[in-house]
């Protein structure tokens, strides 16, 4: 036990004396969470729109006022003719133009039908879609108001409700993803680098000739990173709760347990990488290319898995991060208990055990 404590102490010296790794360890999670939280956002807020009103009557004015009053839109300018539409888009001043047809009120009263055209700048398709939906929602509401006194039979009014993230805050989506990336990065990359560093320096040989058992060496190497990863997970959760008002609906204990499980799976991957790489550079490249990219691209963090081609959907199943993201989204946003996520947790556990067995086996072969 004394040997183990001495070993772990030495590892902490390594970590705290290397400013670069210290920066990666603690700077990275904070920087990423703030970047993703503040800079990258799918929400729309104060989107500039232009109005082309051919009728200029009471109804159009009322609608325009409603648009202007919503916090999502800001009426940037009023244009007078069709040909101006393209000009304003080209200038990039507005993201959408609302085009009211001639005699809007009259048509509405006479034919019970009036047309408004919503033209959006779809160079950014997500935003265009959202804008169009939001304008529709405002129009629906107005229509309902008009119809209040009249009873129309057989009317189907679709009312969609976004649950678990009613305001469509993108930070809700990024926090689980960023947490996954950080834990993967810290656990797998840092351990694989720190083990290969001992190989490169020749100290690994000394350790193997010493009475320390290989398993003690490995556990001693990864133990500090389990500890640091847990601290990182706490930093991420605290930042997202207090700065971005991210809810943690479910049990914190469950969240901690699955996070530790995921950390251990990443550590096992890190050990595995260290057994196949001779230098720190190789270890870093393998960690980045072999782990980070799949985690970012195939875990469902940014791109929904259900819209991927079938082969990629199948591949995504072997990525532990995919299951971890499903689990923590469930716990944080939906507040589910273990009874709803036991399947994913079991898969993650299975993967962890598999990676651990594989890395121990690989490590033994290398000793030969």
């Amino acid at each position, binding site marked *: 036990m004394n040997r183990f404590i001495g070993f772990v102490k030495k590892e902490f010296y390594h970590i705290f004396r290397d400013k670069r790794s210290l920066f990666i360890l603690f700077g990275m999670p904070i920087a990423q969470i703030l970047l993703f939280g503040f800079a990258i956002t799918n929400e729309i807020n104060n989107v500039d729109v232009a109005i082309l009103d051919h009728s200029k009557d009471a109804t159009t004015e009322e609608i325009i006022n409603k648009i202007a009053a919503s916090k999502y839109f800001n009426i940037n300018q009023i244009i007078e003719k069709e040909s101006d539409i393209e000009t304003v888009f080209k200038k990039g001043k507005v993201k959408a133009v609302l085009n009211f047809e001639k005699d809007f009120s009259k048509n509405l009263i006479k034919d019970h039908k009036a047309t408004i055209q919503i033209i959006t700048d779809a160079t950014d398709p997500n935003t265009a879609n959202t804008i169009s939906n939001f304008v529709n929602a405002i129009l629906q509401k107005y229509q309902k108001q008009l119809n209040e006194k009249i009873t129309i039979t057989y009317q189907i009014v679709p009312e969609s409700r976004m649950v678990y993230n009613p305001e469509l805050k993108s930070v809700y989506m990024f926090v689980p993803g960023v947490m996954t990336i950080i834990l993967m990065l810290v656990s797998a990359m840092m351990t694989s680098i720190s083990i290969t560093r001992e190989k490169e320096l020749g100290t690994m040989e000394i350790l193997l*000739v010493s*009475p320390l058992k290989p398993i003690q060496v490995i556990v001693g190497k990864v133990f500090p990173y389990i500890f640091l990863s847990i601290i990182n997970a706490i930093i991420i959760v605290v930042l997202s709760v207090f700065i971005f008002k991210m809810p943690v609906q479910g049990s914190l204990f469950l969240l901690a347990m699955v996070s530790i499980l995921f950390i251990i799976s990443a550590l096992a991957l890190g050990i595995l990488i260290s057994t196949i790489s001779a230098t720190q550079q190789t270890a870093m490249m393998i960690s980045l290319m072999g782990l980070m990219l799949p985690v970012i691209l195939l875990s469902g963090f940014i791109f929904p898995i259900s819209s991927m081609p079938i082969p990629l959907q199948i591949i995504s199943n072997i990525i532990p991060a995919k299951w971890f993201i499903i689990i923590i989204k469930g716990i944080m946003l939906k507040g589910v208990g273990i009874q709803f996520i036991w399947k994913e947790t079991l898969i993650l556990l299975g993967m962890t055990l598999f990676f651990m067995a594989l890395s121990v086996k690989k490590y033994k072969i290398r000793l030969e």
Partner: protein
Amino acid sequence: MSNSKVIQVEALTKMFGDFTAVNAITFDVEKGEIFGFLGANGAGKTTAMKMLIGISIPTSGAAKVAGFDVFTNAEDIKKNIGYMSQKFALYDDLTVRENITFFGGIYGLSRKRIKEKSNALIEELGLEEVANKLVGALPLGWKQKLSFSVALIHDPKIVFLDEPTGGVDPITRRQFWEMIYKAANQGTTVFVTTHYMDEAEYCDRVSIMVDGKIEALDTPKNLKAQFNAANMNDVFLKLARG
């Protein structure tokens, strides 16, 4: 088998697939002896040494190190030997004292013992001024001496030195050999591989490996007589060129 033999090797062989890296070598090393293990690069020195220090399992043959069998008691061997590699592997980002404490710790020394040892060692090497400085800042010669002392921290029966003097200047090499003599005088057996033929002259006995076999084994004096050579360098060249 007499008690004074701390290393006994009999027809020890290591094969990697079809390639025989070490071919049935046989030799003994006496307690307190400085045993030189010579050979060209690729002759099988390192492989042979790895089997003796318990990190590589022999294909066939028999060997006992410090009284323990390399096949069955590798863990006991590890407790009784010290090892210093050609890289003087200490941790550059740990201080002199921290390095000593760490290596003392992994060999299971008590905290009190480590403290005594560190103080004695630092005084002996004259490192008082730099005891709390990072090892990375020390000159190579100092690192080498510290590395040797660290290999001896648990008072091993045998210390294995793998090309310990690579890249250091002749004066430091000389001082280093004085340390080796001192350790041998105190009863520690020294098993050393080297490239420097002048160092071979310092050894009590020398073995020379060629292509996985021990081609010569005797005192430097006898070897020179046997091969009718002026110095060990000539002995080595005559053997290596076949």
